[in-house]
C-alpha cells in the first residue's frame, strides 16, 4: 500500500494517460449515437442493442421529441463522433436525415428502425440500412397456423391503395408458405366507413377465407370504426381475426383472437447485427437493405379462439400471453 502511496508522480501520470487513452480509444472506435423517443418500447430496443453488442460498444442516447431540433441532434452527433447512428421512430429517422444534410455527412452510416414504413422512409438515403416495424403477414400466419387444427389457405385483408406495394410484398412471402392474400383495395380518398363496411361484407360472405388480418392503419382502425363497423360485421363470423394491437385482443371486446406485435428487445438485437455488419465492412453500409422484423410477441384470446376454431392445446406453450 505504501509503495502505491509513494509511487513517483510520473508513473501515476503515465498510467493515467495510458488508461485514459485506452478508454478514450475504445469509446472513439465503438461509439454509437442512438436517437430514440422516450418510452419502454424504445428502452427495450436499446437494451437489445447494448446487450447484444456487449461492453465494447458505447451507446450514447439522445431522447427525441416533437420539439427536438436538428441543431440539438447535430450537437449530440458532434460530441459523440459516432461510428454509427441508430435512429428509432419516424421522428428519429427524420432528424437523422436532416442532421446529416446539415452536416454534409454521408459517411457516418445509419440504422433505422421502429418507424412506420421504414422501407419508404429511407428509400433514397445513402449509407443506411433499416428494419421494418410492420410484422409481415407470413410471420403472423405461420405462428397462428401452428396453433390451429384447421389449415389456413387464404387470408382476407382490407387495405388502402397506397399500401399496394406492401401487400404485394406480403403476398410473395405468404406464397412461400402456400397461403394466398385476398386483398380488398380501397382508394385512399374513399369514405372509410362505407368502404370498410362493403369490404368486410364481401370478405365475410366468402366461404374460402380462413383468417382476417387487420392492418394497423388509422384510416380503418379507430375506435369509431371498431364500434360501428368491425364489431357488427364480424359478429358471428367463425374464423380467427388477427390484429396488431394488444388491446384489441381482449376477450371481453370480442374482436381480435390473435395479436402479433414486434418483440422490441429482439428488434434491438437484430439492429445490433446490422451494426456488426457495418463494422465488418469498415464502418460503412456495404449492402443497402431493409430487413423484415424477425421476432414477435404473440397474444392469444383463447376464449375467442375456442368459440370459433379448434386450438391445439399442446401448442399453447409457444404463445407469450394467453388470455381467457
Amino acid at each position, binding site marked *: 500500500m505504501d509503495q502505491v502511496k509513494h509511487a513517483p508522480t510520473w508513473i501515476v501520470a503515465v498510467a493515467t494517460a495510458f488508461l485514459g487513452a485506452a478508454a478514450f480509444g475504445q469509446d472513439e472506435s465503438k461509439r454509437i449515437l442512438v436517437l430514440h423517443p422516450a418510452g419502454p418500447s424504445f428502452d427495450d430496443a436499446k437494451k437489445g442493442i447494448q446487450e*447484444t453488442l*456487449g461492453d465494447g460498444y458505447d451507446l450514447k442516447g439522445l431522447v427525441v421529441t416533437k420539439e427536438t431540433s436538428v441543431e440539438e441532434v447535430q450537437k449530440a452527433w458532434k460530441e459523440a463522433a459516432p461510428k454509427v447512428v441508430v435512429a428509432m421512430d419516424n421522428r428519429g429517422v427524420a432528424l437523422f436525415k436532416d442532421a446529416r444534410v446539415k452536416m454534409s455527412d454521408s459517411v457516418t452510416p445509419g440504422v433505422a428502425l421502429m418507424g412506420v414504413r421504414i422501407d419508404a422512409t429511407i428509400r433514397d438515403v445513402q449509407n443506411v440500412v433499416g428494419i421494418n416495424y410492420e410484422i409481415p403477414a407470413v410471420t403472423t400466419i405461420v405462428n397462428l397456423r401452428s396453433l390451429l387444427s384447421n389449415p389456413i389457405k387464404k387470408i382476407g385483408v382490407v387495405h388502402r391503395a397506397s399500401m399496394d406495394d406492401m401487400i404485394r410484398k406480403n403476398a410473395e412471402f405468404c406464397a412461400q*408458405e402456400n397461403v394466398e392474400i385476398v386483398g380488398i383495395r380501397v382508394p385512399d380518398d374513399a369514405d372509410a366507413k362505407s368502404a370498410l363496411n362493403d369490404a368486410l361484407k364481401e370478405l365475410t360472405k366468402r366461404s374460402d377465407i380462413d383468417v382476417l388480418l387487420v392492418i394497423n392503419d388509422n384510416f380503418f382502425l379507430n375506435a369509431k370504426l371498431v364500434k360501428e363497423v368491425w364489431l357488427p360485421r364480424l359478429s358471428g363470423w367463425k374464423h380467427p381475426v388477427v390484429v396488431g394491437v394488444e388491446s384489441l385482443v381482449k376477450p371481453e371486446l370480442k374482436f381480435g383472437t390473435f395479436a402479433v406485435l414486434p*418483440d422490441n*428487445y429482439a428488434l434491438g438485437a437484430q439492429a445490433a447485427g446490422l451494426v*456488426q455488419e457495418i463494422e465488418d465492412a469498415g464502418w460503412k453500409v456495404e449492402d443497402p437493405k431493409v*430487413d423484415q422484423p424477425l421476432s414477435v410477441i404473440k397474444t392469444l384470446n383463447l376464449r375467442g379462439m375456442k368459440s370459433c376454431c379448434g386450438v391445439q392445446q399442446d401448442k399453447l406453450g409457444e404463445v*407469450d400471453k394467453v388470455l381467457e
Partner: protein
Amino acid sequence: MKLHRAVPWLAAAFLAAQASADKIYVFFPSMAKPNVVQAALQAKLSGHEVTVFGRLADFTTMIKQTPPDAILAPKALAEQFPDFKVFLKGARNGGALEPAVLISTKPVVADALATANVGVVGVLERPAMNGYVKSVVGSQPKLKIVTKVEDLLPLLTFGSADAILVGEGQVDEIKGRSQAALQTTDVANGKIGLLVASAKGDASKLEAALKTLGTAEKKMLGVDSWIK
C-alpha cells in the same frame, strides 16, 4: 447454548442454506416459452427454486449478480462458467452430442459455407458465436444470430440467411411449422452439445430430481435421457 437461544440461529442457518442450496438457473432456447418451461420444471423439482431465462444476457448477468447453485444450459454456454462442474449430461438417442443440420430452401454446398449467411440461435455472446459455429461446421460463415428458435424460420422466408443451423432434434419442429419446400443437409462431422447440468457443490439431490423429469419436461430441454 440453551435450545430456545439456538432456535433463531438454527432457523437462520436453515433459511440461508435453503436460499443458497436450491437455486437453479436454466437457459435453453426452445419453441416453448420460458414461463411455461419454468412452471413445468418447478412442478417436478419441488424443493428447488427454478428460474428459466429467455434471454442470454439476463442469464449471464444473474449468474454474476446472484450466483445460483446449479445451472442447466447448452454445453457450450455452461463451459463459460468454470466454477460450475458438470454432474449430468442431457442426451438424445444415447449421446450427449447430436448431429448438426443445416435447413435451407436451396441446396447447401458445404464448401461454400464460408461465404454463406447462416442463421443460428445465440447461445453465447456474439463474438464467441463465431468460434462456436466454426467448430461445428468447419468454416466461418457470416452469422445471422437470433434470440429465439422460432425466429430461425423467418430468416429463410425473408431470404436473410442461406441456411439455418440447428441440432438434429429441432429439425422436425422447425420444418413442421412451415409449408415451404425446406431441405436438410447434415454437417459432416458437425456435432452440437446438448444441455448439461452443472453445479458448484454437491448436486446429488438435484441429480436425483432431474432424473425424475418426465418425457414432456425433458423434451422442453431438448433431451430424452441423462448420462453421467
